[in-house]
């Protein structure tokens, strides 16, 4: 009776599943690596830049013969900048494409969503740019190639105090993103520890377009600087509306600002603002310049931090594969964990015991409609 109905439903699905079941990973001559990325949606430049960096790295590696005698094949799955989609994307890559490693995501919320899938599948995952500490906390298979927010928050807090002599700070953070919440938290802690004052603490949600209410409240508190640890999409609008409201104090941010869209959306409104990030395209380091040049030749334009991080992450993976001598999860994981002094374009990368990278940060200033290197902050 009801069994019949259930059997019918099952039969239907099983039949279609069987038909579609011919999926699976690639053949024996390539090593399939997955990339969970926000190729479309609100923070699309992050995913696209990281993907570009990774592909360039992989092309270079394949041109030299690949890894373990095989070519690397990158399969990218778009999560549309939506948190739960990152999980689905990771699942698809792990189960449908049988990738041996997962690269991504840039946004911390999305890495947090995808991470457990990698853990469950016992496949290593390296995030190129997620800075929230929770991404790697308690995980065996998740790593990151960048610094973490306790460091980044402190960088900007100290910058505000020492460089801008700002004692009264306001914060406007994105309540929906782990990255922003975490970064704001660490900033707050450091400011308080160093004797500064948080005069306004407002929040918004990613996707918001109207910030005048919060900005008016912030303006009334008369801060010396405003910390906006969010992503570039909202930042552009916030900057414009802040100027319209007559706010002249500088806005400060983190690596979430690192995208050409900040300049595009913000236009003249973001002039004179500062933010911390992973690398400066106008650095004098010959390795960076070489990278910038090759990137420009391949894709046109200047690589942003995510592109550089994507590039380094892919190369770290390749290096680890070579050292591990195998694509097996546990062996690859151990090899990644043992990465020491890897020469990347975003600095010298050593993976510590928490699966994070100890790296320097740079502070960039927006001047003349461009990002300009301002200061280096060492990891010590």
């Amino acid at each position: 009776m009801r069994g019949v109905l259930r059997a019918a439903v099952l039969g239907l699905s099983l039949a279609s599943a069987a038909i579609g079941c011919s999926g699976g990973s690639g053949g024996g001559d390539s090593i399939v690596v997955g990339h969970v990325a926000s190729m479309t949606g609100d923070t699309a430049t992050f995913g696209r830049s990281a993907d570009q960096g990774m592909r360039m790295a992989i092309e270079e590696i394949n041109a030299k013969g690949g890894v373990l005698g095989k070519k690397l094949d990158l399969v990218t799955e778009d999560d549309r900048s939506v948190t739960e989609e990152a999980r689905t994307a990771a699942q698809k890559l792990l189960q449908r494409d049988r990738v041996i490693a997962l690269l991504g995501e840039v946004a911390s919320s999305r890495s947090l969503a995808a991470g457990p899938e990698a853990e469950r599948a016992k496949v290593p995952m390296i995030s190129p740019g997620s800075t929230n500490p929770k991404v790697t906390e308690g995980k065996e298979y998740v790593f990151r190639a960048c610094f973490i927010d306790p460091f980044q928050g402190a960088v900007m807090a100290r910058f505000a105090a020492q460089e801008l002599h700002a004692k009264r700070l306001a914060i406007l953070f994105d309540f929906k993103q782990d990255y922003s919440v975490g970064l704001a938290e660490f900033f707050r802690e450091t400011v308080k520890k160093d004797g500064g004052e948080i005069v306004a603490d407002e929040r918004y949600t990613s996707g918001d377009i109207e910030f005048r209410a919060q900005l008016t409240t912030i303006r009334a508190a008369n801060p010396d600087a405003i910390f906006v640890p969010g992503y570039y999409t909202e930042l552009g609008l916030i900057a414009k509306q802040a100027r319209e409201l007559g706010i002249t104090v500088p806005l400060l941010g983190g690596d979430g600002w690192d995208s050409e869209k900040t300049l595009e959306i913000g236009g003249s409104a973001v002039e004179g603002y500062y933010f911390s990030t992973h690398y400066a395209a106008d650095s004098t380091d010959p390795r960076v310049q070489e990278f910038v040049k090759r990137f420009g030749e391949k894709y046109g334009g200047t690589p942003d931090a995510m592109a550089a991080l994507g590039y380094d992450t892919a190369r770290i993976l390749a290096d680890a594969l070579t050292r591990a001598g195998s694509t097996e999860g546990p062996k690859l994981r151990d090899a990644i964990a043992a990465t020491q002094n890897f020469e990347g374009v975003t600095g010298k990368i050593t993976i510590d015991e928490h699966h994070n990278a100890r790296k320097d940060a740079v502070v960039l200033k927006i001047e003349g409609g461009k990002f300009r290197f301002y200061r280096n902050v060492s990891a010590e």
Partner: protein
Amino acid sequence: MENLLQQLLNGVTWGSIYALIALGYTMVYGVLRLINFAHGEVYMIGAMSGFYVARALGLGVEPSLLGLIGVLVASMAICGVLGATIERVAYRPLRGAGRLAPLITAIGVSLFLQNAGQLVFGADPKFFPPLLRASEVFRAGHVAITNIQLTVLVTALLLMGALEFIVQRTRFGRAMRAVAYDAPAAALMGVPVDRVISGTFVLGSVLAAAAGILVGLSNPKIDPLMGLMPGLKAFVAAVLGGIGSVPGAMVGGLLLGVIETLVTGYLSSTYRDAIAFVILVVILLYRPTGLFGAPQTEKV
């Protein structure tokens, strides 16, 4: 105090957008007793079409008032046609089929426009070209108003005034009111009901398009899903003011904008979206006919 004034200003400006959209809901409900769920998407198409028209005309590099007006008119025309088409294709076949079927269809049209929009326009947000260069127009102490905010307010008020004129002082307006009051009687009196209904949709869509352009001007980020929340909130505004009442929609919209802004500024922005729905539920429970609506009895 200055803070409060600035917040009120912010709220009224934002609320006028809601008001423009709410008018479309209220007018359509008045003549058809239908909640046109797809209306929020018409607003989105207004913004999107404005974006593409501006791009096609090469505007945005240099701010231009004429360009703004051109974009406004073009987008209003496009949405007017869209509104009439939706009515013709999706709602007219269901005239007289009860309340449920049109409601479901309306939801379907809304979903269709959102998702087709994502496919056609791409899911990435687009940034409206700056058709006006932002500059402070007036400042009294800490209370500032920019030319953009002023433009939004003035345009919205002008359009609302024009609508009020049409509704109260023209034959078409009289026909609309007749159909809203008693459609069969109006038909018997020779009022071309079908055309009036089409016209109502056109009017509402034109206003929604204007709202889309104004938002593009003051909050330049637009994307295919931008109509969802504002659509729902504008609907709440219409209910708040009294669904079916034109002045009600205007007041409802402004009121909602102010309440939202005050809540965000003084409490927390996390409740911003919830406020509208709480208002909705409260109104529906305690005064379903809204601020300006007349109590209705149900005939058995």
